[in-house]
Every structure is written in C-alpha cells, then in structure tokens.
C-alpha cells in the first residue's frame, strides 16, 4: 500500500510524485511509456540517444534525473485499466495486478482534437501532437514535403522541427488570423523567452503561412497527395475560392483535449469549460476533485501546457494535506489559457465536416448518420452511440466524441454541458484478455450459484 499513486509520468505527474516524496509520503508513479517525460518531454529512443540535445530533451533529462534520485517507486510500460475506490483505499488495476494507495493523483495529459474532413484518414495525414512524438523519440520527419495545418502554437513548433530535422514545410495553413496571434502576443509578454522563440518561429515561416485558412479536403490515391484549402471567416466557416497545395504528408490538428477518462472512471465531477480545452474535472486551485483522496494535475485538469504542468503537479501533492502550500501559477495560467484560446472551436468549423465524412474512424460512422440519429430523437451521447456505433471502437470515442458533440450542439441547440458525456467504463485502454487475467485453474472458478431452473 502506497500513500500516493500517480498515474502519468509527464511533467505534472513527475513533479507531483517528487513533491509528495519530499513531503514524506510513499509514492509510486505509473506510466504506459518506457520512461518518464510524457508527450512534451518524451525520451529519445535508444537508437538516437547520442543525437544533439534539444530544449525538450534537456528538460526531460533533468526531470528523469530528479525522479531517479528521489525515493519514488516507478512502474513503466504498465497499463492502468481500471480504477476503483473501496472505502478509503484506491485500487489501481494494472494489467493482472492490483496496486493500492490512500491517495490518487491523475496526470494523464491530453490528446488531440482533429476535425474530421474528407480524406482525414488517408495515410500520410498525422496529428500535430503525433508528429511531435516522431521528432522527439525518433528524429523522424513525416515526409519530404509537408503541409502543417490547424490551429494554435503547435503549428509553428511542428513546422520548425520539421525543417530542423531536414524536412521541408510546403505551407502552414493556420485557422488563426494574424490578429488572433497579436492578441495572444500581448499575454506572451509575460514569457519573454517564449515570446522571442515564438517570434523567431513565426518570422521564419511568415512567408509560408497562409493565415485564416483551413484544409477542406485531403486527396490522394492511397496516400496524401493534395491538400485543398480555403479561406475562413472569423467564425471559421470556409469561404471563397479553393487553393490546392501539393504534399506527401500533412500534420493536422486543432489543439488539445484533456484526457479525462481516468478521472471520470474514478468518479470525479466534471464540467465543460472551453477555455480549458473542453470537459475538465471540477477542482479547487490545488487540484482537489469532488472525491476525497483524488487529485488531478497537468493538461487533463485543463489545457494549460508544459509551463504550468510542474507547478500544478506540486500543488496536487501539497493538496493531500489540508494545510498544504499553494504555489502560484498565475502567469503560467494566463499564458496557457492564451495558447488554448487559439484553438477554442468556433461554430464555422462544423462546416468543414462533410456529411459523408467518417466522424468515427473506428466504426466508419458519418456525420449524416449521426445527424439522422439525433433528428430522430437520440440526443444523449449514450443514445447516439448505441444507435450508430459512433465511439464504440477501440479508441473508446477519444477521437470522435468532441466532433459528435459539436454536431449535436448544432442540431439541437443544446449546450455542451447539457449534452453531457457517455458513461465512463473500463478498461481505460483496450486490453488483451490474457494480460488482465491469470490462467484459470478450472476447479478454482468461483461459482456464485447456478441460475434458477
């Protein structure tokens, strides 16, 4: 039994673990990757370990070193599939093992919002955040001629990394206008180093950036070849003439969504806040949830980015004690929110989702089918899912839930809060049966009583 279990070893989770260790608690941190760092400070694979240092690899190594020299126990390459609270104890089911703790800190980060447009599932089209994993872990570029499209600051980071690693950026297609960025720059003044870095990136790609525009279609025989784009208005509705770009790869995404499956399964209350990326656990300023002994930190508690994450992690550890110290994240929060604001979906975005486009790629469910289901009376996410299979596949709705809710919002006029979320159920990730069970000794099978005749 641990005092604290932390799920997720990114900057928030690791800082929470180290802080809890410093406070004298016994701590275990669990991650599905092979080492700490999360997405943002992801470790290099062993094949590129001698590659030149980057800012993220330096920060990541510092984080890993700090963790290594602490008393925190670590469990990597481990998948948590179920979380349950029994009386005052947390049972964390990791494959066929059950680990227990008095407190649970969830730091599971975020995943990408990807607006489904025709051709979005073509090979060669990858997510913006997915692309960053390629750079950091493998120093790979997605192709020779890449279009980077979507919203927010990741566009410029990804473009910069592609060219640093020897690829070519054909164009950056940014939903955000120059004016959107100008507004954010005012807030970035609080972070002069980042402001300078951002300024360098934007100026480096200024000529390649097509502002206030969006891809409307990805085309290619069996791989991406062409990207068709249009200008968008202030509401992000595509307008005007089509422009065609050639590309052998596309990095595409519209910001990040908090990964709340674990905190939902643990039973915490959640609410919708678009300024934090969508549905988030309802917490106090230290990360205390509605459930005693359950804390959240990092992007899964609302998208505030890597700068805020370490402090949020420390706060979550401090929150275990009623009189814990609060570290101030004021300026990091303002900065994080300014970056997140660039990707708050606007109503016109829905016009990019063609009626025959698969919204749910696992089950092949189109916008038209979802709309039909809603119009004929299925209005909750559970009912829409049951009728159409949207969200029933292996991704568990991670990639389609947001678009499905946007469609629902549009058809019914309900708020996202009123639309709600589908029921949270385990496993948190698809799990091979023999990984979560022991082999059965048939005579040991607990038979709770034969069904009545």
């Amino acid at each position: 039994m641990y005092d604290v279990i932390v799920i997720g070893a990114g900057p928030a989770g690791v800082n929470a673990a180290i802080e809890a260790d410093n406070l004298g608690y016994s701590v275990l941190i669990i991650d599905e990757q092979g080492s700490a760092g999360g997405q943002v400070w992801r470790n290099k694979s062993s094949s590129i370990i001698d590659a030149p240092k980057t800012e993220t690899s330096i920060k990541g190594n510092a984080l890993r070193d700090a963790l290594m020299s602490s008393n925190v126990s670590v469990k990597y390459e481990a998948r948590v599939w179920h979380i349950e609270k029994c009386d005052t104890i947390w049972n964390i089911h990791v494959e066929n093992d059950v680990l227990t703790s008095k407190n649970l800190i969830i730091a599971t980060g975020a995943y990408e919002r990807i607006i489904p447009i025709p051709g979005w599932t073509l090979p060669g089209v990858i997510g913006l955040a997915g692309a960053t994993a390629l750079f950091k872990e493998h120093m790979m570029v997605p192709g020779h001629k890449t279009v980077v499209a979507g919203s927010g600051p990741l566009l410029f980071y990804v473009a910069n990394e592609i060219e640093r690693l020897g690829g070519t950026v054909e164009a950056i297609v940014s939903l955000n206008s120059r004016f959107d960025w100008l507004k954010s720059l005012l807030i970035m003044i609080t972070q002069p180093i980042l402001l300078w870095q951002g300024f360098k990136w934007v100026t480096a790609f200024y000529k390649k950036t097509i502002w206030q525009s969006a891809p409307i279609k990805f085309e290619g025989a069996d791989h991406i070849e062409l990207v068709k784009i249009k200008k968008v208005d202030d509401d992000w509705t595509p307008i005007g003439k089509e422009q065609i770009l050639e590309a052998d790869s596309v990095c595409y995404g519209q910001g990040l969504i908090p990964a709340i499956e674990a905190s939902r399964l643990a039973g915490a209350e959640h609410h919708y806040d678009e300024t934090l990326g969508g549905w988030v656990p309802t917490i106090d300023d230290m990360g205390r949830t509605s459930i005693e002994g359950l804390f959240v930190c990092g992007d899964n508690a609302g998208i505030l980015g890597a700068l805020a994450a370490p402090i949020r992690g420390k706060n979550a550890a401090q929150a275990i004690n009623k009189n814990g110290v609060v570290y101030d994240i004021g300026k990091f929060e303002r900065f994080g929110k300014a970056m997140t604001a660039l990707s708050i979906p606007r109503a016109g975005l829905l016009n990019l989702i063609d009626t025959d486009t698969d919204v749910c790629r696992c089950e092949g469910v189109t916008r038209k089918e979802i709309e039909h289901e809603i119009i004929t009376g299925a209005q909750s996410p559970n009912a829409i899912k049951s009728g159409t299979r949207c969200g029933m596949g292996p991704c568990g709705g991670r990639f389609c839930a947001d678009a499905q809710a946007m469609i629902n919002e549009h058809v019914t006029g309900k708020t996202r809060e009123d639309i709600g979320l589908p029921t949270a159920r385990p496993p948190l990730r698809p799990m091979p049966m023999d990984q979560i069970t022991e082999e059965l000794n048939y005579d040991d099978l607990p038979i709770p009583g034969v069904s009545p005749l």
Partner: protein
Amino acid sequence: MTNTYDIAIIGGGIMGCGAALRIKEGGMDPVVIDQGDIGQGASGVNAGTLSMQIKRVKLMPYAIKGHHEWQLMGEKVGFKKTGGLTLAFNDREAELLQERMTMKRDAGADITFVNPKKVEEIEPHLAKKIVAASFCPDDGYANSSLSGQYYRGRLTDENIDTIERFQVSEININSNGYEISSGDQVIKATRILIACGGSTKHVAAMLGEDLPIRARINTVSVTERAPRIMNGVIGHATGLLTMKQKDNGTVLIGGGWQGKGTPEEGRGAINPETLLPNLQLAQFAVPTLSKVRVVRSWTGFEANVPDFYPLAGRLGEKDNAYILGCVRGGYTIGPYISKLMGDLILGREPEMPLFDPNRVFNEDKLI
C-alpha cells in the same frame, strides 16, 4: 392545461414501449416516461442473448413466443438465429446439463444433446475439454444497442408521446387518477404502469407498495473486432457464460456475473472480482480469445424477486395501477409479455397467464 393520458408508463425499455404499442393499438392514449433515454437501461445494455437453453422451464412457452417476436423485428434489432451450444467441462456440469436440458426440451424447446465430435464441427475454436454439450438450432441473439433506436422509431410512428430525462420524484393519487411529478413538471394519467426495471421497487414505493425486489447487477464485456472464432451462441451448463461473435467480429461476453452499485446511485460499476473470472471462463472455453482485446466492460440492472419469476399484473389493491418487470430472460420475453400486459390493461383476456405481483414469494431453490 396539460392533457390527461389514459395511461402513464414509467420506464421506456422493451417492457414499457412494448406495452405502450399494444395499448395504443387497442385505442388508448399512453405516454412513456423515462429517467434517461428510451431503451438505454437494461434493454439497451444487456448481452442480447436469445437462447432457449438459458430460459427457465416454466417460462419456456413465453420465451418461444418472445423469440418469434424478435424474429419479426428482424434486421432492425440485429436479430440472428445462429444456433447455440451449452457446454459442460466436468461430470458435475454434465449431470446438471442432462437434467436441465431434458426438462427444457420437455417444455417445448428444440434441444438435443451432442457429442464432443459434433461440437468440434459446429465450433472448431472451442477448447477440446468438453465433457458434454447440448444444442438448440433456434438460439441466437439480437443487438441490444439498437433497442432504443428501434422502439423510439416505433413510438414515433404510432404517435405515442415520450418524455425522456424525467426523473419521477413523486406520484400522487386523486379521484381522476395519477399525477406523476419530476420537480415542477407534472404528468396526469388515469392509469399507471410501472415498468422501470431496476428502479421498479423505488417507484412502486411512491405508491406505498413494498415489493421484495432486489436489483441484480449484470456484467457484460465486448472485444475489438476479431477474425471469426465463433459461429453461434455459446453457453455454460451453470449459466455463468454467454458468448457470441457479431457479424462485425466483436465478441460479447456475459453470464450474469454481479457488479457493484444500486439503481439509486447511478448506472452501477463492474467488479473486477467477478469480471475477471467471467473473462477467464470465456478464454477457458475459447482459448483463441486470450489475445483479443477487451474494449469495454459495463453493467446493467435487472429487477429480481425471490422466486425469479416475472412481475406482471395489478399492483396491490389499487385501481388502475399495474406493474411489469421480468427477471431472467426479460430481453427475450419482453416483446411478448408486454403485449399480454397491454391486453390486461385494455380489459382483454391475455393469451397466456400473467404473474401476479401480489403473490406470496417463496424463495426459489438454487441448485
């Protein structure tokens, strides 16, 4: 202001919707009320097995009729008649199988005993550890996920009013009938039918009736799409396993293993201590399943009374108050027994006898 319905049906599952359709057909004006969405309770989350072999002997005539109803609903509810096997892995189970299936056969189900060689022909991926097995060609399944879509469509077609997300907080009786409230909203009706599964006890209590209902919390799991590893429904002599692989390749695993929670607290939760043996048993029967990934495990409530027979009839001494709930086999029997219930309410003589909710409940012996 608001009109008074002929009957308010509390619970928009198979039972409530089926009764509403019959009642409307008979000339009355019903309203269907649900705390959530139509068909999203047990009707929408059960494993969908339509198996004669897991039906109780006394309910067999109802199950045969119910099965026929599902067949008529056909593709819209994902009906498939695949045939099904029930397996015994040791002598004790073989004995149990022999005794039970003989009785079920005598009650009208087309069940035969098959030897292990024949079993291998029917289901080549099964473990070669089978001691005895029975087969029923009528067994199959429907897709419970489509219950909501199907019944919502039928109610709309028949112009039956539905009120979803209406959590009943109070029921008042007056000379005109019943006033059903949810906060400020009130629905008036001359008659009332309680058909809300796991919440039946809670709602019946609002009318002052104390029914000996306990909610069972059944667990179901589904896998990712897998290559063909099963052809029909697979069951276990004890009833602790039901499995079938859908046309899309996903495998549904059930067997009535008990999760946690109560209908008053929410939707219930799986209990790893019962889920894992359920999955172990599934892998024991079909070893190929071991490498297949489980995508989701969930629970659904089922109203349970001490003798495990349905509740279908008048509620207590009250005028115009009825109850309909069905333990064990409610999914299969639902579309049929709800018609019988409709007939009773319409003042017609039901084709088969109903199950008096006011009976003295004797504990049914579990063997």
